């Protein structure tokens, strides 16, 4: 499958990445090679085969709707790049 610069541009936007010109070139070429390689999977007949998302039978873990101890606010904010008044400070989200 051909990977074009447009594809790279689109996928980079979905992945929230800004790519330099050099990166775009490099990635177009790398992805092209890798995608061609993984196209190999089409050699296998998988009709009727169920996709396996998890290797062990697991179910969602639920608990009682009881308030339990949470983390100390100071501790959580200590890693914030920018904080103010007990909140994470971010650029304007809504116009």
């Amino acid at each position, binding site marked *: 499958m051909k990977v074009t610069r447009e594809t790279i541009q689109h996928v980079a936007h979905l992945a*929230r990445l800004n790519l330099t010109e050099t990166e775009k070139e490099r990635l177009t070429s790398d992805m092209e090679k890798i995608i061609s390689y993984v196209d190999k999977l089409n050699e296998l007949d*998988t009709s009727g085969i169920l996709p396996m998302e998890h*290797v062990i039978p697991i179910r969602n873990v639920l608990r009682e709707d009881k308030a339990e101890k949470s983390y100390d606010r100071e501790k959580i904010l200590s890693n914030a790049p920018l904080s103010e008044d007990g909140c994470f400070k971010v*650029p304007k989200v809504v116009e």
Partner: protein
Amino acid sequence: MELYELSAHELSGLIKNKKLSVVELTDTILKRIENIDSSVGSYVTVSGVEALKKAGQIQEKIDKGANLPALAGIPCAVKDNMCTEGILTTCASKILNNFIPPYNATVIDRLNAEETVLLGKLNMDEFAMGGSTENSWFKQTRNPWNPERVPGGSSGGAAAAVSCGEAVFALGSDTGGSIRQPASFCGVVGMKPTYGAVSRFGLVAFASSLDQIGPLTRDVTDCALVLNAITGHDPKDSTSAAVEYPDYTRALVNDVKGLKIGIPREYMSEGLNPEVGKAVMEAAAVLEKLGAVCEEISLPITEYAIPAYYIISSAEASSNLARYDGIKYGYRAEKFTDLLDLYKQTRSEGFGAEVKRRIMLGTYALSSGYYDAYYKKALQVRTLIRKGFDEAFEKCDMVLGPTAPTTAYKIGEKADDPLAMYLGDIYTVSANIAGLPGLVVPCGFDGSGLPIGMQLIGKPFDESSLLRAGFTFEQNTGYHKLRPGI
């Protein structure tokens, strides 16, 4: 042997018999790190002050006559993708270069319950993506057996540290071979437990359906001791398996009579370095002489494991790494125009090239129009891979083969060809895809003196059989006693 070269069980004996103090042992290993780590580069963070303090507290308990766990007083280190409260946890990435977790990973709590001494955090490929530790934002770890060679990856720091006496044992993580391959390259024992056996709570997620934490140790006995400490159901991890976990030290029996071992013909074919192949077949012969029955089997889907792996792991990684947005923790770009640009600049400046490559691949595979062709297809192939092993396990108890197609290659040799790097995972990824346990045990050296490890893959939750085979092999050979001599 030097103090820092002994195994955990040997040191434990000395500590319990009061022949060695925990403080003296911890100090010896910290000095070892001070002497050689500027050359080896295993550590990102050494927490020496905290380690000595903890050592003193443990020694006090011993002096008071307390009955302590098997690994009490043993200095260890963990890969830098496991959250350690109050200690920098970076995943060897710029985007987390200043991140100090406010909580411990479950495995850290379990090591603390064992009264071990945490020495620090170990170098790795960024976000566990890589097979050589060349993708670390901080430094290159060097193979203690030859400094121009890679230690393997992504748990390169862990394997190197255990190999050259900078930690008695380490915890690594394995998504596509990241414990087993560096164990093979550095001549130590490495195990990836069955998926679900070790809690992933506090392990920075790479690929949620593939990641597992596991031990890197000097011998199989130590591996069993560490497994006892870290396995077990954890209510904080919804993928943790609620099964019975045995005492793994009961598997340490020198007997493989009647054990059925399958050697896949697809593993022993072209692409495998002949010296590696020879060492692995000689190891199989040792086990056969001791009563195991080795037979050639077929795992025909083997060649499809790598493409399936790279789609599944990249897709899951693209989801898991979406959280790194510069908002609540980690690196935030300084120059940006609006919120969207903050995200893009932060991530572009914070992530390395390999991480970006995998995120792009994963995003592509999951995107509208491609999801069925790539991600869904890969999951169907996953079912086939698991089926292949289930069928093999009807005829044999475990699968034996090489861990990697080569021994440790030169730093820089594969850096320009990501696909070539990916192909090195051929023998390890299937175990992650199928969720099976895998044990690597040193079994020889190549002509340049570089270590070779054989890999045993077992039935789900049958780590005990793998340990028994590995222990028997060790008791009848001597590779686990050799050290790199730096």
